[in-house]
């Protein structure tokens, strides 16, 4: 492929660009030629030899030149190929990671059939001798969020491969509806790869009316391969921490003191930062 590249693309291009170059027979090439020709042929009468010598020399020169040009083109096409591979490696690596779930990258979970099949196979993959793992539940509401958010149970003990249900409870203590989004964190971080959440309440906006209290379930299991992982030998405690943030949609209400008459105001991102009211720009009611 490199030769193809060099011969058909680079060579015509370069020969057109460098057409003005004249190749002079260098002393080195003459010496090379004479040594080559002397080794091949015995001594001949010098009279008829001269033209033949010139022809052969020119031919040799052209061959040398071609050889050199070929090498140069081959090298440059290699360089271009490597450069192209560097650019291509970014999407290729992404595809590889998604397919194999290497290094904790988001695995593209298939449709419901594959998920159900995976769960059904869990029973076959677990054995009764698997050790019990303790899952600890913690929670952190964000400082700006007037919610109480607690786990209903501090810990549960399960075997890897067993599905488990756990609950969190959240209550909106303020006097305005708030939309919150939860995200979670698993410690130790290598265990995050084996922590499979079937269903939970995270990453989607959850709206709570003032004073509303809600139970939020988390349904998950730990992959049985957890036991075979050498970096997780002896790990028997996993910590699951949930955090609730206010959704960007209603955050500005918190900054305006919860004044609901300002609900239609749309703020620029710079205006939603803390201490935005100290900036020079005024917040006008009808900006979009």
């Amino acid at each position, binding site marked *: 492929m490199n030769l193809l590249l060099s011969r058909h693309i680079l060579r015509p291009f370069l020969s057109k660009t460098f057409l003005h170059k004249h190749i002079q027979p260098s002393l080195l090439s003459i010496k090379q030629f004479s040594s080559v020709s002397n080794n091949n042929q015995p001594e001949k009468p010098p009279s008829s030899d001269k033209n033949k010598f010139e022809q052969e020399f020119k031919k040799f020169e052209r061959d040398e030149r071609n050889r050199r040009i070929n090498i140069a083109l081959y090298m440059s096409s290699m360089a271009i190929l490597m450069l192209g591979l560097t650019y291509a490696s970014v999407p290729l690596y992404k595809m590889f990671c998604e397919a194999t779930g290497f290094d904790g990258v988001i695995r593209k979970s298939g449709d419901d059939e594959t998920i159900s099949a995976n769960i059904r196979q869990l029973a076959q993959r677990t054995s009764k001798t698997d050790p019990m793992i303790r899952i600890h539940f913690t929670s952190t509401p964000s400082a700006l969020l007037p919610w109480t958010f607690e786990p209903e149970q501090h810990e549960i003990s399960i075997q890897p491969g067993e599905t488990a249900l756990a609950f969190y409870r959240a209550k909106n203590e303020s006097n305005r509806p708030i939309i919150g989004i939860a995200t979670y964190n698993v410690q130790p971080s290598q265990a995050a790869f084996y922590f499979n959440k079937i269903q*939970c309440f995270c990453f989607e906006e959850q709206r709570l009316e003032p004073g509303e209290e809600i139970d939020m379930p988390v349904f998950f299991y730990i992959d049985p391969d957890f036991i075979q992982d050498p970096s997780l030998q002896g790990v028997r405690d996993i910590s699951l921490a949930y955090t609730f943030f206010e959704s960007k949609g209603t955050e500005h209400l918190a900054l305006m003191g919860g004044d609901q008459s300002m609900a239609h105001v749309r703020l620029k991102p710079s205006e939603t930062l803390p201490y935005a009211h100290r900036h020079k720009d005024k917040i006008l009611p009808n900006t979009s």
Partner: protein
Amino acid sequence: MTSYTLGQKYISPTKPERGVFPLDHEGECKETMLKYMLCLSRNDNKPSLCQAESKDYFQCRMDRNLMKKHEWEDLGYSNEQQRKT
């Protein structure tokens, strides 16, 4: 929340496989949830011993359209485990 620990690779949280549980705003399944919690506290926080109560909770959710209907096997309750309780 994402964690950066010294010298370790960054692992980002993954989305739940079956998506989000719709919120139980009316508290329709709160009773079953409380029963499950009581069972857990009685059984040393082991969900494997509280399968009946957790099944009740899922049944409550499925009946009230708060969850997609699944077979029990799809939720990880095999017959073998049923015999354990």
